[in-house]
């Protein structure tokens, strides 16, 4: 299924646009209201820095390097609130309205009760593309923007490799590939 979604995303990413920088200042006020929040902004420089500690000796490390190397930036904002109603539709709209326009394609929208998840693809004039996710849940508001090839399978794999902060098998001078079971092996086991 993930592969199917990935292919769907790649197939849909054929439109060209201009600017994919989204102004998220409307959400700044949530930093103090939220129970938990995560703000991650990774530039090409910080992504390059992140790859510098990944090992080439391990298959997992190499895979991660390949995934990160293709990315040009990552922007994440997520706010988790203690109670419902911490944000309004206008707050979501302030971000959503920036997603339309030339170069943007909404390829998935799921509404389920109070939950709404939208996935957008964008492609710049210079050929670079990206994926944007806007998720509005009753107690959580999330914005994800990945600048780079919107390869969901790779992103999911990267997430799996890094899950739980398990960096020992992928760092350049810590652990060894043999100590950590490769995720490919785990996938094979799951498939079997």
């Amino acid at each position, binding site marked *: 299924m993930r592969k199917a979604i990935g292919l769907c995303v790649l197939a849909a990413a054929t439109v060209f646009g201009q600017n994919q920088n989204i102004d998220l200042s409307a959400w700044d006020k949530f930093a103090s209201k939220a129970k938990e929040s*995560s703000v*991650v902004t990774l530039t090409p420089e910080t992504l390059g820095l*992140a790859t510098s500690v990944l090992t080439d000796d391990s298959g997992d490390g190499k895979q991660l390097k390949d995934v990160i190397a293709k990315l040009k930036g990552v922007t994440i904002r*997520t706010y988790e609130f203690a109670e419902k109603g911490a944000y309004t539709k206008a707050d979501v709209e302030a971000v959503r309205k920036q997603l339309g326009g030339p170069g943007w394609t909404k390829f998935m929208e799921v509404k389920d009760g109070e939950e709404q998840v939208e996935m957008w693809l964008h492609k710049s004039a210079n050929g670079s593309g990206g994926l944007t996710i806007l998720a509005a849940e009753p107690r959580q508001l999330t914005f994800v923007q990945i600048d780079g090839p919107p390869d*969901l399978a790779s992103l999911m794999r990267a997430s799996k490799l890094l899950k739980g902060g398990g960096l020992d098998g992928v760092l350049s001078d810590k652990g060894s590939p043999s100590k950590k079971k490769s995720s490919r092996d785990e996938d094979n086991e799951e498939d079997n």
Partner: protein
Amino acid sequence: MNEFQREEELLRQGLRRREPRDGFANRVLARLDEPKRSAPVAQASWWSWIMAPAMAAVLIAVLGLGALQYQRVGRERQQRAKAEQALGQFARAMEITASKLELAQTRVFRTRGQQ
């Protein structure tokens, strides 16, 4: 001669005047004319004047290189910490991305199931 007198006689013999040997005065005068022999003084040899600054230079070089190495290792550690922090942020970003993709996937499956 009693014991007291014997001891007196011995003392007298010991303290009696004796004439110096012949030529004593000449020998004394000759010694006076001799140049004075100074007490031996520890003199620094020529190599110690070269070795001292050389050793100081080596010591300074070793300390300097040590300080540079210490700074380099410190910078490398800082760089490594920043890189690991960046990777940690990337891991967090991927975790959030994956959770939202899974959320969308779950909702799609649910919607399809209802249909």
